[in-house]
């Protein structure tokens, strides 16, 4: 991840104050640090790819906290789903459901991330069409099964299998825990 230069101002609501800030920053006079504003940091980290974002969690406590924000992972996930997922994909309802199922970070780790890796491995041709092929609804379906199996673990049943990580998604990735 490239760390050159001061971060760009997030929103351009009014020209004057923004210009001021810009002048200040470009003037190089001042200790403006990327860590000064967690929201700006969040905006930046939200533009990373999955691996970098996971790595960012190890930089310092602030970065760890920000990179655990589900909103950051939500942006990452939505960036990778195909256009077929429709406008509903970014809606409030989806956010509620995903939160109930375990959050976007977990969704990426268990479903989208491995699927992207697999598409990447499949070769350049597949990668070019990767966006169309990655479906949010499919990922959510698989994610639902994962959540359901975890519910089973909390409930009854003394079978040894219940205490292991949900096995129906083991095929997607080796269970390396980054949480």
């Amino acid at each position: 991840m490239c760390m050159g230069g001061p971060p760009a101002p997030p929103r351009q609501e009014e020209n004057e104050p923004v210009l001021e800030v810009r002048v200040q920053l470009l003037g190089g006079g001042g200790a403006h640090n990327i860590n000064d504003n967690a929201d700006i940091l969040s905006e930046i980290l939200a533009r990373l790819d999955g691996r970098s974002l996971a790595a960012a969690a190890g930089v310092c406590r602030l970065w760890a906290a920000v990179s655990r924000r589900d909103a950051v992972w939500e942006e990452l996930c939505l960036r990778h789903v195909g256009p077929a997922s429709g406008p509903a994909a970014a809606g409030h309802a989806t956010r509620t459901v995903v939160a109930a199922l375990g959050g976007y970070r977990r969704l990426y780790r268990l479903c989208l991330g491995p699927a992207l890796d697999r598409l990447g491995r499949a070769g350049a041709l597949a990668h070019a069409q990767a966006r169309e092929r990655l479906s949010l609804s499919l990922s959510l379906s698989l994610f639902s099964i994962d959540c359901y199996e975890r519910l089973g673990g909390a409930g009854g049943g003394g079978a040894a299998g219940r205490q292991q990580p949900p096995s129906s998604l083991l095929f997607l990735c080796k269970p390396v825990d980054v949480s």
Partner: protein
Amino acid sequence: MDPAATASLSGELPLPSVQGAAASYCVDLSVDASVLPAVPPSVAEAEAARTGHEEEENAAIRLVHLLVTCANDIQAGDYAAATGNLAEARLALGTTVSTATGIGRVTSHFAAALGQRLSRASPSDSGAAPVAASSAEHTGELYRQFYEAGPFLKFAHFTANQAILEAFEGCDRVHVLDCAIMQGAQWPALIQSLSLRPGGPPALRITGIGPPPAADGSRDELNEVGVRLTEFARAVNVPFSFCGVRGDTIDPIQAWMFKLVPGEALAVNSICQLHRLLVDDVDPNSVAAFFPEPIHTVLCWITSMQPRVFTIFEQEADHNNPALVERFTNALFYYGALFDSMEAMSTHRRTNTTGGLGGEAYLQREIFDIVCGEGSGRVERHEPLNVWHGRLWRAGLAQTPLGPSAIRRAAGLLRSLCGAGYRVQERGDFLTLAWHDRPLFTASVWHAPPTNNVINRLFELLMGEPEAQPTEGEPEAQATEI
């Protein structure tokens, strides 16, 4: 040092040597020819590998031939010859053909099944140990392993859920009836899709048919499944209720047990259950001919409930022939392809396969049933899609055409679940999951046409049933590569 001497001492080809200050390179070609191999190593190795491979193939072909001959002998009643052939086959399995992989793995199950059949026929033969009678819990566990080992059940659930979702569009109260709910793994995805439906989720009711609680009272699977589904639905805010209907088979069940509510949209879901209801052809002159076959009873009450959608998933195979040899041969090739695909998938995942393939035990049960079971003892009566098409049509059901995106979505699912090799074939309105052009399972969607179409229906019956869409091997089957 003299390069030639070096060569004869060490057996290596001489390296270019620097001689004197001029640093001129020279390669001494006067090397003893006997130290060089007669043929370059890579060619010899390839030759050996190919012969070894051919030998393995021949051994496998011999083994299959032995087993089929054994089945033939059993069918003819010649148990002595059958025992001899089986013993020879077992010997081959122990030595020339490896049972850990490929054809050896699947044939070892068939050999064991033949062994069991022989041991029942002539008690003096100490055949393989019989498959242990199992509790519902054990069945459930095997089913779960099969679910994880291959994409088959996931494909079934996914395509069925898509069809149900489409059929429920615009309905506020919906009811799903699952002919065999098992661990309920199909339904979380549907519940989640309904919760994100534009316009909000409907009130969902699921009725699951499942086995009665274990005799020792330790676990009530059906109840547990109900609790988990309810909890899940609550988490995603879908109004939900669950009802369990207990029964080992579905034919004694009656429509009134489901407490249908008028105005509710109904979906019936059957994953690999319908074939269990088939029976051998009855003698038309016997008393049994007066009683309807279980499959007709069940299809009758399903049709009477007027489901908006009836999703069916069945094996695409002909394992219901009364003649053992036909069944045996068909099953051998079918399960061979199935095991092949599962092996490829476990290699693809790079999981540990020392304990045998996941799902192997589940399939072993099916194999034993097909080979050893006769009459009412056989439940795995798989039939190909054209037979099912005729049967369902005669029962009064009509097929729902697949949407244009069905095949694309199914292909997308297979792509994300597993590597190359699996294909989705669209034949008419049937969606078939195939392994390298060998069809394995077929999904189809049906509905009951409204009863006021009685005149049309009579007309259709008079004109004869429509042909099932392209039969096996027809070029019209469009396969989608993964």
